[in-house]
């Protein structure tokens, strides 16, 4: 009897020690996204929020490079969060929205439509950046199942060590420095870019064989709409003002989105033809030759759209609320500091 008990204790000890070692190794080898691909931190940062938001932005790079929550607060007193990420496909956005709506009920959800062009999972690296930071829930399980490319396995999301063990040889200073904790990289989901690299020319985009937006992504768009409708949230569609040969918004897609919006009584704002009205200057408002807006361009767009949010959707000005103001004023200081540092560099 004693011998059996000993064996049990020894087995449990071995299991615990193995689990500890594996957890340690796993924490060491997973990418930290601190010096490059900062986007890999966006999903997890949302959970650090201590206050709710009246506006939630979802979508791909065109949301986290275009809308700045600190500006919305400063100019309109609107609380917001950008729950977007690099190449967030429609199913990423849906499940991240579902996840967010379990925690809060914003007044308006704004979805950027560019990613609707993708009907299938594209790239494991983007899946990892979108999903690894998500807290475990039914939404995360469903998101993984919807997102996996052919070579991926569900188990590798449960045990990222299975996927990242090969990074063992690449372990560097960053992996030790951010072993326990990571820096905050965004401003309520907005990833600031202060550089300026002008767009000097326009080029023809690649012709496509099929201009029909995929049924899979459109189904997820519909799921987002229904989810918002059930919760009494205004669901608004937007297309960011950027439109380069690489990230091109085809007229045929525009027609389909307009038809969808009209069918369901949704508002849709395509900012591409509104660049002049917004005040965008492609010689100074982009950091990568027109593919994305820099902070100066993002602020102009946010100012423009903030007016719409404030006037048309009557999103409240909450600057009078002392506790909320204290939180947001801190965010504003961090935002302005990074902007000033970026300008000086």
């Amino acid at each position, binding site marked *: 009897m004693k011998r059996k008990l000993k*064996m*049990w204790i*020894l*087995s449990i000890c*071995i*299991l615990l020690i*193995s689990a500890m070692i*594996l957890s340690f190794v796993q924490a060491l080898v997973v990418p930290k996204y601190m010096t*490059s*691909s900062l*986007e*890999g931190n966006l999903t997890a940062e949302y959970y650090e929020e201590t206050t709710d938001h009246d506006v939630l932005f979802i979508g*791909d*790079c065109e949301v986290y*490079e275009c809308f700045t929550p600190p500006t919305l607060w400063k100019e309109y007193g609107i609380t917001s969060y950008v729950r977007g*990420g*690099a*190449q967030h496909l429609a199913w990423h956005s849906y499940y991240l929205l579902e996840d967010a709506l379990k925690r809060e009920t914003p007044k308006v959800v704004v979805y950027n439509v560019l990613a609707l062009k993708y009907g299938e999972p594209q790239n494991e*690296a*983007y899946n990892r*950046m979108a999903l690894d930071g998500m807290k475990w829930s039914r939404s995360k399980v469903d998101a993984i199942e919807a997102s996996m490319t052919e*070579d991926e396995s569900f188990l*590798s999301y449960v045990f990222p*060590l*299975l*996927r990242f*063990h090969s990074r063992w040889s690449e372990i560097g200073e960053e992996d030790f420095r951010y072993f326990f904790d990571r820096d905050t990289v965004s401003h309520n989901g907005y990833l600031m870019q202060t550089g300026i690299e002008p767009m*000097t*020319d326009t*080029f*023809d985009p*690649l*012709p496509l*064989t*099929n201009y029909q937006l995929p049924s899979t992504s459109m189904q997820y768009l519909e799921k987002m709409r229904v989810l918002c409708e059930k919760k009494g949230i205004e669901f608004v569609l937007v297309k960011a003002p950027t439109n*380069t*040969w*690489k*990230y091109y918004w085809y007229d045929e897609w525009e027609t389909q989105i307009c038809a969808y919006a009209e069918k369901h009584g949704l508002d849709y704002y395509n900012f591409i033809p509104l660049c002049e009205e917004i005040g965008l200057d492609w010689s100074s408002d982009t950091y*990568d*030759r*027109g*593919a*994305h807006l820099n902070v100066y361009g993002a602020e102009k767009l946010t100012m423009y759209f903030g007016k719409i949010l404030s006037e048309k959707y009557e999103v409240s000005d909450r600057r009078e609320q002392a506790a909320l103001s204290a939180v947001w004023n801190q965010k504003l200081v961090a935002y302005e500091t990074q902007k000033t540092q970026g300008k000086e560099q």
Partner: protein
Amino acid sequence: MKMLKSTAIFTILLAILCCFTACEEPADNGKIYAFSHNGCEIAVNSDVAPILASLGSPLRSDALGTCGLRGDMDKIFDYSDFTIYTAQIDGKDYIDSLVLKSDLVSTKEGVSIGDQDAKITEKYGEPTERNDNVLTYDGSHMKLEFHLDEGKAVKSIVYRYTIEE
């Protein structure tokens, strides 16, 4: 003792699973459609550097990054009769797509902008796929596409790299 053995085996198996997770290479059917210009062969998925050296400077070019994956630049090289689109892998630019846009050039098989769809099938046979405006011919990790206007005349020709067969 049995439990101790099972625990040890489980731990070893988990470690082995970690070490031997690998990817499979896709199959290849070997057929490639390429475009030739002034003796320079341009095929998708080839390194663009020697091709650019042979073609000379483009009229215009541009390079755009990939969001979230800094360093990977997609590029466009615009010549008077065709445009080359490239994607970067490990710092090297590979041709992702090639678009013929003028009737001054033609495919190796002799189809050019303005030709009717009948000429395409005469030269290439039946396409792998045909929709209202595009005739597609599958090759090895690539597709050759003839985009037609309303009058069924070729308005652009696209050589496109594809990952799947």
